[in-house]
C-alpha cells in the first residue's frame, strides 16, 4: 500500500533510486544467520554497560542536587562501578566496547557526570574522604 505522504528520507520526489533489498522487509536486529549466541551475549552485555552509564549519570546528578543521601549515593555508585568493571572483564565485551570514548561516540551518549565518575573509578564521596585523610595526615 502506498500512502498519501511518501515520507522521503532524502527529500527527493518519486525517486527510483534502488534501495538495498534488505530494506523492503523488516530489518531484524539479530539475524540468526549472522549473529550467533555468543555475539548475542556480547550485545546484551554492551546493553548493560550502556544502561549503567545512563543510570550512573542520573545518580550523580541526584546526589549533587541533594535528592539522595551520601550513603545511598555511595552504595549505589559502588555497585554500578563494580558491575561496569565486571562486564568489561570479559574479553569479547571489552573488544566490542573498544574504549569509553569510542563507545560514547558510537552510541551518541551524552552523560558527562557518568563519564567523569567512570574515569575516576570511585564515588565522589570516597574521593573527598581520601582528600580529607591526606589533609589530616599533613
Amino acid at each position: 500500500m502506498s500512502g498519501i505522504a511518501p515520507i522521503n528520507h532524502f527529500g527527493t520526489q518519486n525517486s527510483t533510486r534502488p534501495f538495498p533489498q534488505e530494506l523492503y522487509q523488516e530489518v531484524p536486529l539479530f539475524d540468526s544467520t549472522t549473529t550467533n549466541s555468543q555475539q548475542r551475549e556480547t550485545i546484551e552485555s554492551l546493553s548493560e554497560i550502556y544502561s549503567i552509564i545512563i543510570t550512573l549519570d542520573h545518580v550523580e546528578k541526584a546526589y549533587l542536587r541533594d535528592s539522595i543521601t551520601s550513603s545511598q549515593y555511595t552504595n549505589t555508585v559502588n555497585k554500578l562501578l563494580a558491575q561496569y568493571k565486571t562486564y568489561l572483564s570479559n574479553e569479547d565485551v571489552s573488544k566490542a566496547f573498544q574504549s569509553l570514548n569510542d563507545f560514547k561516540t558510537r552510541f551518541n551518549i551524552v552523560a558527562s557526570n557518568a563519564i567523569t565518575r567512570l574515569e575516576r573509578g570511585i564515588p565522589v564521596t570516597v574521593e573527598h574522604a581520601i582528600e580529607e585523610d591526606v589533609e589530616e595526615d599533613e
Partner: protein
Amino acid sequence: EYDPLWMTTTETIGLNQLYTLVAKDKALSDTINMLYQMLNRGIIQLDIFVKKSRELGRQQFLTRLHIEKIAGLLLRI
C-alpha cells in the same frame, strides 16, 4: 485513538522501521528523564529508579544498535 497521519508511509518497510525506532529512542530518553524527576521529588526510591532506568537503558541501547544497522544499509544507496 485518532492519529491523523496513520496512513502515511515511507518508500520501504525498512525506512518505516527507522522512523519508529528513532521515535522510540527519543521516547525512552523522555521516560528516563521523567523517572529522574520523580526521584528528585521523592516519589520513587533510589533502588526503584535504578532498576527501572537500567531496564529502559538496555532497551535504548538495542534501539540505537538497530538504528545503526538500518542507517548502515541506507548508506549503501
